[in-house]
Structures are given as C-alpha cells and as structure tokens.
C-alpha cells in the first residue's frame, strides 16, 4: 500500500507547490504584461500613422479581414484610421496593422504576429517588404495577380495574405471613412 501512496502523495505535493508558484507569478506579472501589450499596440499604431491620438471605434462595421478599427486624430482634425486585420497566411493566422489616411492611402503596415516559415514568409516583417505599401491605394494585389505589390520570393502566399489585409483596410476606409465621424 505504502508503495502506492508515498509516490502519489509526493507527486501531489510537487503539483500543488508548482501550481501555487505559477499562480503567484501569474498574479504578480498580470499588470506589467497588460501594460506591455498596450505599449506594443501603441507603438505599432504610432508607427503606421505617426503623431496622432487614437480612439477605438467600438461600433465599427467590420468587413473582410478587419478585426478592429481605431480612429486617429491629429491636432483635433481627422487624420485617418488604424485598422487591425487578421488574414490566413501560409502557416496560419497572421495579424497586422494598417494605417490609412482619410484619402484612403496607406500610411504604414506592420505585421503584429504570424507563424510563417523563418527566412521565407517571415520576411514580411522586414521593412523592405512592408514599406512598399506606403502611399498605395489602388492596385493592391501582388504582381503575379496583376497588381503593384512586389511579392517576397518563394512566399507568394504570405505576400498575398498581407496584401489582402492591406486591401481590406483601404476598402473599409473607402466604404465607411466618410460616413463615420
């Protein structure tokens, strides 16, 4: 009997101690992590559409891959929108943020998270790829599909996914930008 109870009891003790330590760490780090995430979000927003204040449009009509819309204002005047998109790419979901000014021109694109192949699809996180979107409004398709976007070599699926997100963001502003205050 003891051969069974002693190991079981000790395993239980180890599990309880570990669970307790995990609980404490999770509780202690909860707030700093939340603050970090907000900062990451803020940094990305000011990267795609700089020097603005951002306010979430809570009743935004979401279409396509658009998941969240933030309205940007600069010195009290409309500056455009920062739009979060989630598209499906080669390795799974890819989340990105697109800055679009009020004339529906892209001001910046950043990839927030992805699970594509390092060295191939992951090159979408290089400025050399995402900076080409700046200033675009039409022709948002990869060159292979007749658009103006230069795809990453051997990562057409990723390039198409990012382009789709950018295109949906621009479309959202074209459809809703004027209507919303």
């Amino acid at each position, binding site marked *: 009997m003891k051969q069974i109870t002693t190991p079981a009891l000790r395993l239980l003790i180890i599990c309880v101690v570990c669970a307790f*330590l995990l609980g404490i*760490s*999770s509780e202690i780090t909860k707030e*700093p992590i939340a603050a*970090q995430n907000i900062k990451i979000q803020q940094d990305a927003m000011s990267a795609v559409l700089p020097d603005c204040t951002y306010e979430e449009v809570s009743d935004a009509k979401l279409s396509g891959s658009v998941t969240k819309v933030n309205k940007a204002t600069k010195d009290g005047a409309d500056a455009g929108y920062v739009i979060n998109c989630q598209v499906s790419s080669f390795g799974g979901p890819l989340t990105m943020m697109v800055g679009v000014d009020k004339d529906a021109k892209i001001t910046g694109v950043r990839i927030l998270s992805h699970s594509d192949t390092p060295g191939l699809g992951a090159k979408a996180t290089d400025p050399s790829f995402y900076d080409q979107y700046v200033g675009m409004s039409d022709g948002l398709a990869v060159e292979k599909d007749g658009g103006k976007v230069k795809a990453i070599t051997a990562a057409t699926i990723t390039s198409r996914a990012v382009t789709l997100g950018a295109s949906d963001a621009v479309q959202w502003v074209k459809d809703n930008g004027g209507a919303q205050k």
Partner: protein
Amino acid sequence: MSNNLKVLRDGIIFDNPILVQVVGMCATLATSTSIINGVGMGLSTAVVLIGSNVVISLLRKFIPDTVRIPCFVVVIASFVTIVQLLLQAYMPALNDALGLYIPLIVVNCIILARAEGFASKNNAVASFFDGLGNGLGFTCLLAVMGAVRELLGSGTFLNIKVLPDAFPKTLMIIMSPGAFFTLGIIMALFKYTVLSKKKPEESEE
C-alpha cells in the same frame, strides 16, 4: 581535469545533445534557418536547462522513482512558464528577441533527457555544469547549422549580404529538407573526425 570541467566538456563535445545523444531534433531543424535564430534558441535553452537541471537535482531525493517522469514534466513546465511570464513583464526587449523560442523549449526533449539522464542522479553543482555544457553544445551546433543554411539559402551571413546575386540561392536549404541534409552531413563529419578518435583521457584514467 576536474570532474565538473569534464562534465562541461562532455556536454559540448563528446556527449553533444544533437550530434551524439540525438535529442531535441524538432527545435534544431526548425530554428536553424539563420545564425541569429539558432543562437537565440540555443542560449534560451541553455538558461532553462541550467535552471531545470539544478531544480531537479535539488529535488532528486524527494522525487519517488516510480513517478519521476510526471514530476520532471511538472517541474520543467512550471519553471519555463514562470520564466516566460517574468520575461514578458519585466524584460520586454529580451522577450521580443527570445519570446518566440520559449514555447519551443517546453517541448524540447533535451531538458527532459538531461533531467532523467543526469540531474536526477547527480548533485546540483555537477548538474549546473551539465546544463551549461549541453546548452553550449546545443548552441554551437545551431550556430553552425544556421550559418550553413543562411549562407546557402539566403546568401547572407548574420543578415549581411555576402554572396553576389548571381550565386544561385538554394531555397530548399532554408526549408525542412535542407535542415535534414545539413544536419546529416554535419553529424557524419563530426563522427568521422571527432568521435573516431574517442575520448583520449578516458583511456588513461
């Protein structure tokens, strides 16, 4: 040569986790696409490995033999999760660089293999050196594989372009088949050159 140094050396060379023990293949194949990826993964693993080795070693008298594997798994997973939470909360820059690798470390069987094979039978100091040695051995191999695959696959070295555009880039090397080829060739060369000489000091002892 003192015992701890010998443990350290064996971890790096004669018991190299990848080339000799052949554990942790998944992480090796996946993260050796470039030098930076490889070294990042290697160093994060080394830190976790040292920590988990020391903890397991301290607990080795308390952990009953019959349920040791579940105990190891619980301790290692908790340790990695706590490290990850602390990194996210207090060292965002480091987390940005290494965050990608931490979930991969949990499933890296180097950690469990060293807990089972070494830390559960040796004291904390020796386990520390075993963790350090194996971690460095893992890092060195990932750096070499990363260098080869980055050079042939992307024509760069540490993200700096070294091969002219005219040189054909072999995309396959970056993808999974390339990982197997590269590892196989390195392993064969290693066995042929280093291991064929056998541990020199062992025979004298």
